[in-house]
Each structure stands twice: as C-alpha cells, then as structure tokens.
C-alpha cells in the first residue's frame, strides 16, 4: 500500500516533467559485496546499454568500464555500490555509472590513473582504461574519504 506522501510525490513527478525527455528509466543501484555481485552489475549495465540504444561496441565499452570500476570498489574499497543513471542532453542519450565505496580512498590519483600502476596484484590498467572507455570521467577521493567515480558515455558525441 502506497503512503499518501509517496503517491503525492509520484503524481507531482508526473505532472511537472523535468528537462529530461519523456520516459527516461529510473536510476538503479546495485550493491557490490562479492565477486558474484560483479556479474550482477555487468548484467544490469549490459541491459541498461541496450535500453539506452548503444551499438555493440559501445555496449562492450560501457560494460567493461563498469566491470573495472566495480571490481576496484570490491577489491580496493572493500565493497560499494554501482548506480546506473540515464542522463539526457539535446540530441543524445547517456548512461552514467556512479561507483561509490567507503574504502581507504586513493592517495595519489594521478598515479592511480597511470597505466601499469597498481597497489594490488592486478594489471594496473583498470582506472585509466575505464577513463578511456567513457566520455566523461571524474573521481572524488582522498585518503580515508572513500572513492566516488562518475563516468558517462553518450550516444552522440
């Protein structure tokens, strides 16, 4: 049963459309706690890329980037969340990944983005590679502050 407040909010949302076009899917959040969760994230992101209308190459790029970022959150951040958003801008649809963890944060971001740099046993291409796979890429982090990576890919550039 919906609470009165909720239904009011929902109808308000419908009555006053935001700048986004009609029918943008609602953002979805996915928890990353285990290696199996990475699989769930990849499936969700794959479905989202299809929903946005990306071609096969872009689908693969976005899913791969999501896999890298989610794995970073899992391995280095001790788990986190991946939120899939559907931003719009004139003439283009987008897919935005917000990957958040409450881990130790990244002490030297420039080094972390350098290919071959790794603090673990990986190849050290994850973060930099993910940046190259996406159109927009920002990292908010600091020692002890956790990490939030926001990465967006647009259908038209």
């Amino acid at each position, binding site marked *: 049963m919906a609470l009165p407040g909720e239904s009011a909010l929902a109808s308000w949302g419908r009555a006053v459309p935001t700048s986004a076009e009609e029918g943008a899917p609602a953002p979805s959040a996915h928890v990353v706690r285990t*290696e199996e969760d*990475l*699989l769930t994230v*990849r499936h969700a992101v*794959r479905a989202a890329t299809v929903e946005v209308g990306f071609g*096969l*190459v872009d*689908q*693969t*790029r976005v*899913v*791969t980037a999501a*896999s*890298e970022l989610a*794995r970073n959150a899992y391995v280095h951040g001790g788990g986190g969340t991946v939120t899939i958003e559907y931003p719009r801008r004139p003439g283009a649809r987008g897919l935005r990944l917000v990957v958040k963890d409450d881990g130790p944060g990244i002490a030297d971001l420039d080094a972390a983005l350098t*290919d071959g740099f790794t603090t673990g046993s*990986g*190849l050290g*291409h*994850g973060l*930099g*590679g*993910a940046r*190259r*796979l996406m159109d927009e890429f920002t990292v908010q982090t600091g020692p002890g502050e956790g990490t939030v990576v926001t990465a967006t890919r647009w259908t038209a550039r």
Partner: protein
Amino acid sequence: MRVSTSEAAVRERLTRALRERDAEIADRWVELQLEQALLGTDISEAELREEADALIDALVPGLESGAPVDRVVTSNSGLQEAVVRLSMRRARGGATPTVTSLAVLALKEALLKAVQRETRDAEELFASAVFINRLLDVAGALSFETYVEGREEIIRRQSQQLMELSTPVVRLWRQVLAVPLIGTLDTARTQVVMENLLQAIQDHEALVAIVDITGVPTVDTAVAQHLMQTVNAVRLMGADCVISGVRPSIAQTIAQLGIDLSAILTRATLADALAAAIKLIDGPGPDGDDGEGR
C-alpha cells in the same frame, strides 16, 4: 478439580494427550493441511499421515527429556530429524518455505484441540496454548531454515556442476586442444580451466592449446590477466597457446584498456586459430618432420 497451570503440569498434560490421542492429533493435522492447501505439491494423504505419525511419536520423548520448552525441538535428535525430513520432502516437491513452515505450525491447532478434550478450564487452556506455541514456533523456524539450507545446497551443487560442465577440453586435431570458454572467467573458473587444460596437454602430448573466448561476453583487465596466466602456464608445459574468438568490440575494448596482448598469438575465429595451430605443429622443426617424435 485441581487446576494447575505450572509448566510441569502443562507439559505432563500435553504428553498424556499425545500418548492417548496420537491418532486423533495426526488425523486433525493432516486434515488441516489439506484444508488450508498448505502442500503446494501432490503429496499423498498416506505420506502426510506417515509424516504426522513420525513427528508426533518423536514429540513424546522430546517433551519427557525435560529440555526447556523452546529447546525441545532442537535438543532432541529424533524430533529434529522428523522436522528436517518433512521440510526437505516439501522443499524437493517445490512447496514454498512459507507454506512449509505454515504446515508445521498447523500442528499447533491439532495439539490444542486434543488438550481441549482433556480440560475445559480457561486458565489451563491458555497456559497450554502458550506452551504449544513456544514449542512449535521453534519447529516452524527450523523447517524454514532447513528449506533454505536445502535450496542453497542445490544452488551450490549446480554452480559446481556448471563450472565443470562449461570448461570442457576438446581435441581438435592431432596435438591440438581447444577450450571453448562460455560465460565469465573469474579466479575460480580460471583455476578449473587451467587444471583441466594442463592435464589434457600432458595426456594428449599436445603442442598447441586454443582458448576460445567467443562465449565470454566481457573481457576486462581481470579476465585478460587470467588469460595471460593460462597462456604462461601452457607455455611452461612446452606447448603454444592461441586465443581465438576475439570479436571486433572486444578487440577495441582491450586496446582502449591498454592491455598488451601482443606477446600472445590471437585470432578472430576458432577456424583461424586451428589453421594457425596446424601451421605451428607442421612448421619446419629442427629435423623437418611434423613433430611426430617429440
């Protein structure tokens, strides 16, 4: 009339009811389950009756053991086994966990009905109802737990089976093996693939192993790293490794990620990889033959 609501008295009265009216209680319980459609499966009435007799028989020694009421079910092995067996049977039959625990909890009503035949005193009935509730709530919870455990066991077994099934090593040509990978390549899968492949290389005295990634939807740095580990291990065995099934989108993504696979022989299709493998084994060896006498 002596009115006693002490726990010992309640327990004794319930034990007596179970002894004297066991058939009646079992009948009523089966009837309740049938009425409330709490089966979800086609368990026959005879099977239900059998379950009911087993559980009711086990309740008497359980109650007589003197364990605290909320630990009677879990501390008596016979009783616990009866609940577990019942729940397992329902789980396998496809009943939901809710329905299964509700079926166990329906025994409360049957028991209370039997006690009601013994006494009409409200105080005594109330005390008995509380006692029966505490006794059987544990059984309901145990039933739920068993159900979940049973399902998890099935899931564990299936994922294990899947891991074995999805990594077959096939012989494509004389001294050429192939592993068609399907799905994701995580650490555990890599280990299984590697073990199977290395063993097969030894068994078949293979010279080339083809790892086909057509069925791997995403190749990220972790997957690439696992592939490289596999290739390195194959090379240590003195064989060559070819990675096939590199689709255009995967090639582009790997390049953009900045992963250097140039040291590894890669091909777009399994057919190309087989051609390359045959060339490798037929290539000019030191004594010009086709590697027959390796």
